[in-house]
């Protein structure tokens, strides 16, 4: 091999983020010193982003199996779940936190683009998107700029791409002032048997790159280090990757069309680490090699260095391996969609051990010769077990006692109600979601029927007709996780399942987005380990295996420290029978309101305690897994037996906010009574888990009571639906119109 540059040293490796041990390992793998291009390749492939080296050992402890799982976690671009009738749902969540902190509009937009590519490279047509967002203190102009940019970025990309954004969650806390979180979720549908794989085999089969040209996007670390080696790069590097939803839409249609031909051997989206990632992962999986001529890669700038072409993270690109001889057919499809596609190489044989090699050429010279298997997760990429240690504050938080804060008096209720209903963490997200096209695809069943989770019909061009709907939600109250990562992560899973159950769906599977600080900080790593343990246990109990997801570390700054540990749960549920659809809105005046589940004398980590009483140190709210499972089982039965008119889970803001939300959605009021056995604040505003508000019509009441008396779950009649006004213990706490106006307009007024 001709080497134009001097061989890099351990020092250069360090600048690329490669540890001295790792450098030695590379030398062993190659049997010689790597050149700069090869070192760059290992540095990105062994980065946290691609190799999950600091997290994979723990991720492997999560439950990954069920009867419905068609692809195990990490095997494909996204998880794949059998939803019956020969159809599968492919779904995944992914973060774009750091790019969004730098440039919120493009960062969020490219996040949406990336997650959708993961879905449609499997041959699945995306049908719905969600997002989970975290921002800092909304009173800061910087936070408002970030929220505005992220919302517009998600909207402009998703709207043009043409897949509805049907729900999501947003929380604000000052711990996210410097590091906002942007997690995007997408779900798509594919016929089982028509799923495309991220693999490569068949000696001589052509390798194509399709979509956008390759620019010098996202290769900063390597460029920084390359300055020591050569003056290869003189052009300025783009600080931001720009998304092109128009290109993505064309790529979606063309990709589904080529997969439908049956001539695609393998296909993979180019996200992190670009060409090197897709060539190595596909080759390792298919146990073959590849020879790639980098001169044939269409580039946006002339004279790009080999490492720049290999590592570029330019958006809207795919690597495709097809059957030899079918090039014309594939080319025709891309021409039809005005997309560039270029053959850049072909599949080569692997030795008997299946360890294929990747050979990259530039200007006729071999510039890198690396074994695919050693680059990838599950192959030769390193895996580390980091030290962890419980942070000191956890024990402090646990010392909280409810009697250190005064209870609310009846006279306080109006004030607390106004505080909570207009609080950015609780009020309507209308200002945000009206900027998203939530209805394209004519499949969103939640537009005119609000519920705890979004219901989307399984429907779209090329998808066989069915009555099924998917039921999807994203959930994580990171304040709970911060207070107790094990319990907090369990609650995130439980709440997601509860939302799906209250909507009439059956929870099937989970994708997770694990957002944490620096994993080399033992206290941060403890957050991670505890959260994964809690999540794993909860997912096992709910029989919702984790199909995959994304880990985002380093969400921390020198000023603010780490963000709250935020293990966001994206959950997929299924509604086989459209009649099981349940909504959260109160229906008729006179319907009876019941609480399913037990009240608790608990205000821990509630919005009330945190922002109204301004007590920030308290443990996670009360949570009991057995109670949770029992409540969810009962709610499922109440829905299928048609014994309730509405169901809404109690979460942020407690019982009062849950009842108020059901009332607002139905354009009704309510009159409820507190229970003398519990503190008023805990009863109304506490966020203890495993509770659901249901309403029951006069015709249903006898059947409901009869059923509940036999159920082993506590329940209580708490009041009734009225025409207007929110009444507690006989006293008007707030008028319906005032409440609705506060709730609907609070965020818009802050953002105006």
């Amino acid at each position: 091999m001709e080497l134009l540059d001097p061989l890099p040293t351990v020092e250069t490796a360090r600048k690329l983020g490669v540890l001295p041990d790792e450098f030695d390992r590379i030398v062993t793998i190659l049997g010689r010193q790597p050149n700069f291009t090869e070192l760059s390749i290992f540095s990105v492939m062994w980065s946290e982003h691609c190799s999950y080296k600091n997290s994979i050992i723990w991720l492997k402890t999560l439950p990954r199996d069920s009867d419905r799982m068609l692809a195990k976690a990490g095997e494909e671009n996204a998880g794949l779940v059998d939803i019956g009738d020969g159809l599968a749902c492919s779904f995944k969540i992914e973060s774009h936190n750091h790019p969004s902190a730098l440039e919120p509009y493009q960062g969020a937009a490219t996040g949406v683009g990336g997650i959708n590519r993961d879905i449609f490279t499997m041959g699945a047509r995306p049908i719905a998107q969600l997002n989970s967002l975290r921002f800092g203190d909304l009173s800061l102009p910087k936070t408002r700029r970030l929220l505005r940019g992220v919302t517009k970025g998600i909207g402009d990309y998703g709207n043009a791409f043409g897949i509805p954004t049907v729900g999501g969650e947003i929380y604000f806390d000052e711990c996210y002032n410097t590091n906002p979180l942007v997690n995007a979720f997408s779900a798509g549908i594919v016929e089982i048997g028509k799923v495309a794989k991220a693999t490569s085999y068949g000696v001589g089969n052509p390798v194509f790159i399709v979509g956008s040209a390759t620019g010098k996007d996202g290769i900063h670390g390597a460029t920084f280090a390359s300055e020591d080696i050569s003056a290869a790069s003189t052009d300025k590097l783009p600080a931001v990757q720009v998304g092109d939803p128009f290109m993505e839409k064309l790529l979606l249609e063309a990709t589904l069309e080529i997969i439908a031909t049956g001539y695609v051997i393998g296909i993979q989206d180019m996200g992190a680490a670009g060409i090197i990632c897709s060539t190595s992962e596909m080759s390792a999986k298919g146990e073959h090699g590849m020879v790639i001529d980098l001169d044939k890669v269409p580039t946006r700038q002339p004279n790009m260095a080999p490492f720049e072409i290999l590592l570029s993270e330019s958006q809207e690109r795919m690597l495709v391996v097809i059957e030899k001889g079918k090039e014309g057919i594939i080319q025709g499809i891309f021409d039809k969609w005005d997309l560039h596609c270029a053959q850049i190489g072909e599949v080569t044989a692997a030795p008997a051990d299946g360890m294929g090699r990747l050979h990259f050429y530039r200007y006729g010279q071999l510039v890198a010769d690396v074994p695919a298997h050693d680059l990838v997760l599950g192959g030769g990429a390193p895996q580390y077990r980091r030290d962890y240690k419980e942070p000191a504050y956890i024990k402090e938080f646990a010392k909280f006692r409810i009697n250190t804060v005064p209870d609310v008096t009846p006279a306080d209720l109006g004030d607390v109600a106004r505080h909570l209903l207009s609080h950015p963490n609780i009020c309507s997200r209308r200002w945000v979601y009206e900027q998203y096209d939530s209805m394209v695809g004519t499949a969103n069943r939640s537009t005119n029927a609000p519920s705890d989770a979004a219901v989307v019909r399984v429907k779209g061009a090329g998808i066989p007709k069915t009555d099924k709907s998917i039921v999807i939600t994203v959930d994580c109250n990171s304040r709970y996780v911060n207070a107790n990562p094990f319990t907090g992560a369990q609650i995130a899973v439980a709440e997601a399942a509860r939302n799906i159950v209250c909507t009439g769906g059956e929870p099937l599977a989970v994708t997770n987005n694990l957002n944490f600080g620096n994993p080399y900080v033992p206290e941060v790593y403890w957050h991670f380990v505890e959260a994964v343990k809690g999540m794993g246990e909860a997912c096992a109990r709910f029989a919702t295996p984790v199909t995959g997801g994304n880990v985002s570390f380093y969400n921390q700054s020198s000023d603010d420290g780490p963000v709250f540990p935020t293990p966001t749960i994206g959950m997929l549920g299924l509604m086989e029978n459209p009649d099981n659809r349940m909504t959260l809105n109160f229906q008729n005046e006179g319907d009876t309101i019941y609480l399913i589940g037990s009240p608790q004398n608990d205000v821990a980590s509630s919005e009330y305690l945190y922002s109204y009483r301004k007590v920030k140190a308290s443990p996670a709210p009360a949570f009991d897994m057995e109670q949770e499972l029992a409540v969810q089982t009962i709610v499922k039965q109440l829905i299928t037996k048609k014994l309730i008119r509405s169901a809404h889970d109690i979460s942020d803001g407690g019982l009062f906010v849950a009842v108020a939300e059901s009332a607002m959605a139905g354009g009704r009021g309510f009159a409820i009574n507190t229970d003398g056995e519990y503190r008023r604040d805990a009863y109304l505003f506490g966020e203890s888990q495993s509770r659901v508000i249901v309403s029951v019509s006069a015709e249903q009441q006898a059947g409901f009571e009869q059923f509940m008396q036999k159920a082993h779950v506590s329940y209580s009649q708490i009041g009734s639906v009225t025409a207007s006004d929110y009444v507690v213990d006989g006293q008007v706490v707030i008028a319906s119109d005032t409440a609705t106006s506060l709730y609907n307009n609070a965020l818009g007024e802050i953002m105006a």
Partner: protein
Amino acid sequence: MTYLAEIDIMPQKEILDPQGKAVKLGLHNLNMDSIDNVRIGKHIRLEVDAASEDEARATVDAACRQLLANLIMEEYSITMKTA
């Protein structure tokens, strides 16, 4: 003295310009194949009161840096005239 500033804001050379790319495709579909490298930016015209052209330019430059251009992705150029 009132000065007239003409400001051109363009996506930085190394940044992808999806709009320019799509417009190029549209032009090629109209058989204008000889057109290449289409890039689309913004043109802003504004007036500024200042004692001197240098002062006016400094004000406009600050306006570009702080608000008008997104320096992470865009570059700008200013032409000053007396109004």
